[in-house]
Structures are given as C-alpha cells and as structure tokens.
C-alpha cells in the first residue's frame, strides 16, 4: 500500500482509509467520521425516531470502529461492517427501551407482523430541504433577537433540555410564567424565521 498522504484523504476509498487507520493514520479515521456521521445519523433515525438517541448511537458506533479497527478485514465493504455495528447497537437500545416501556409505537424488527406507521405532514419540509434554505446564522439571529426574558427560558428548555421544574427553580420564575414565555418565545422565533426566508410552510 502507498504511503498515506493527508492531502489526498478525500480521494481514498473507505476501505483504503480503514487500512491506513489500521496502520495508525488517525486522519484516515477522521475522514471516515466526516463521510458517515450524517448518513449514519439518518440511518439510525429510522430505527430510533429520536435525534438524541441517534447522536449517542453514532458516537458509540465510531467508538466501536475505533476500538475494533484490528478486526476489520478488507474482504468486507467498510460501510457494511460499520452499519452492522450501528444496527446491532440500535437493536440493543431498542430492547433496552422495550424493557423500560410496555408500549412502543416503533416497529419491532423481530416481529414480521409489526408495521411502522408513517404520518406525513405535507406542509412541513424535510429537514434536509430546510437545512438548504435556512442557515444556522438565521436561526441564531432569531434566537438572540428575542427579549432577554424569553430567550433565557427558551434556551434552557430547547437547547439545554432542562425540565420546566428545573427552569422555574433556577430562574425563580413561576412555572406558569416559564411556560407562557417559552410558548411566545418559540412563536416569535418561527415568525422571525418566516420573515427571513420563505419556508413554504402554511398554517
């Protein structure tokens, strides 16, 4: 195998990158992460329906790839090997959650008669299309344009995942006011974004 060239990293096949990574070229691993991070997230979302779970599973998958690099053999496509790891992790998580909740609306991969229900709202654009139309800066600008009282509680809830009880306790604001401000803060963000770009949504 030729010597690893960092400048050519984007031109290498996945399997080449994995082989370089097996020979301790860490940038090859970073390139594999870059290539598959989003694809893996989308793949796993079909199983978990939860972005936070996906994020954790993608992290865990790459961690396993990193730790198990010696076990990869070039006879298999890298993507097949990695997706198998990801799928096994998703199944483990699913089983763990099944034990936690008696009722789940998600498809049981072990039950051939269990079907997943898809509900589509045509007024909402797929996230990918939204990403193309909407920049991160516009969203952040909208958030930062909120009145301080609203911005604080919205950020605690929607970016830091605090519960309403925690927000009320940490800010000293009554729960009802917290909820009222969050409702109006979110509504204002939507209206500001709507004025920045035409998202194609209709109410």
């Amino acid at each position, binding site marked *: 195998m030729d010597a690893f060239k960092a400048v050519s990293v984007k031109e290498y096949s996945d399997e080449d990158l994995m082989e370089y990574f097996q020979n301790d070229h860490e940038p090859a691993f970073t390139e594999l992460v870059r290539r598959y991070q989003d694809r893996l997230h989308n793949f796993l979302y079909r199983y978990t329906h939860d972005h936070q779970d996906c994020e954790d599973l993608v*992290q865990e998958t790459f961690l396993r790839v990193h730790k198990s690099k010696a076990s990869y053999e070039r006879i298999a496509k890298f993507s097949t090997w990695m997706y198998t790891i990801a799928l096994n992790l998703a199944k483990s998580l699913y089983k763990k959650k099944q034990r936690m909740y008696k009722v789940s609306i998600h498809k049981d991969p072990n039950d051939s008669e269990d079907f997943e229900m898809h509900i589509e709202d045509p007024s909402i654009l797929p996230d990918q299309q939204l990403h193309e139309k909407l920049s991160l800066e516009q*969203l952040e600008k909208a958030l930062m344009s909120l009145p301080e009282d609203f911005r604080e509680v919205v950020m605690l809830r929607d970016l830091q995942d605090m519960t309403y009880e925690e927000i009320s306790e940490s800010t000293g604001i009554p729960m009802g006011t917290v909820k009222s401000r969050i409702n109006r803060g979110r509504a204002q963000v939507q209206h500001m974004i709507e004025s920045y770009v035409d998202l194609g949504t209709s109410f």
Partner: protein
Amino acid sequence: MNFLDKEYHPVIENYIVDYSEDNLELVERDTFEEVLVHDDDLRELAFSAKEGKRLLGMLKEVRAKEGFLDRLNKRIAESGN
C-alpha cells in the same frame, strides 16, 4: 403580532406546551385542535410555537454536530484505546 400579547389561562398554556412538544394523547390533541379552530389568535400562537420548537430542535442538532468530533475524540481518549 397581536396573538403574542394575549394572555391565556395556565391550563391553555400547558396545552400549548404539550402540543408543541408532541406530548398530547391522540384524543387530547384532537380536542385541543377543535378549540384551535374557533380561536384565531390561539391557533396562531400554538402553530407558531410548535414550528418554533421544531426549528430550535434543528439548531440544537446542528450545534451538537459541530462538537461531535471533539466529543468522540474525548471518549476515545478516555476509553484508553
């Protein structure tokens, strides 16, 4: 945006929160949407809040991805590989 200035009973505010976060049971959601049909300002607030929540979820997701590699490298280092 007049609908933002209106005040609602805390029970209604609770419903808007749950509606935005998809925490309502099917029957509750249908009932709440019936209420929305008859109140333009409340409908505007509830729909906007729900869409705003979704947009902020995207912002969170993008921010999470930004730090993805740093967090992964930290975990790899911690795992002692």
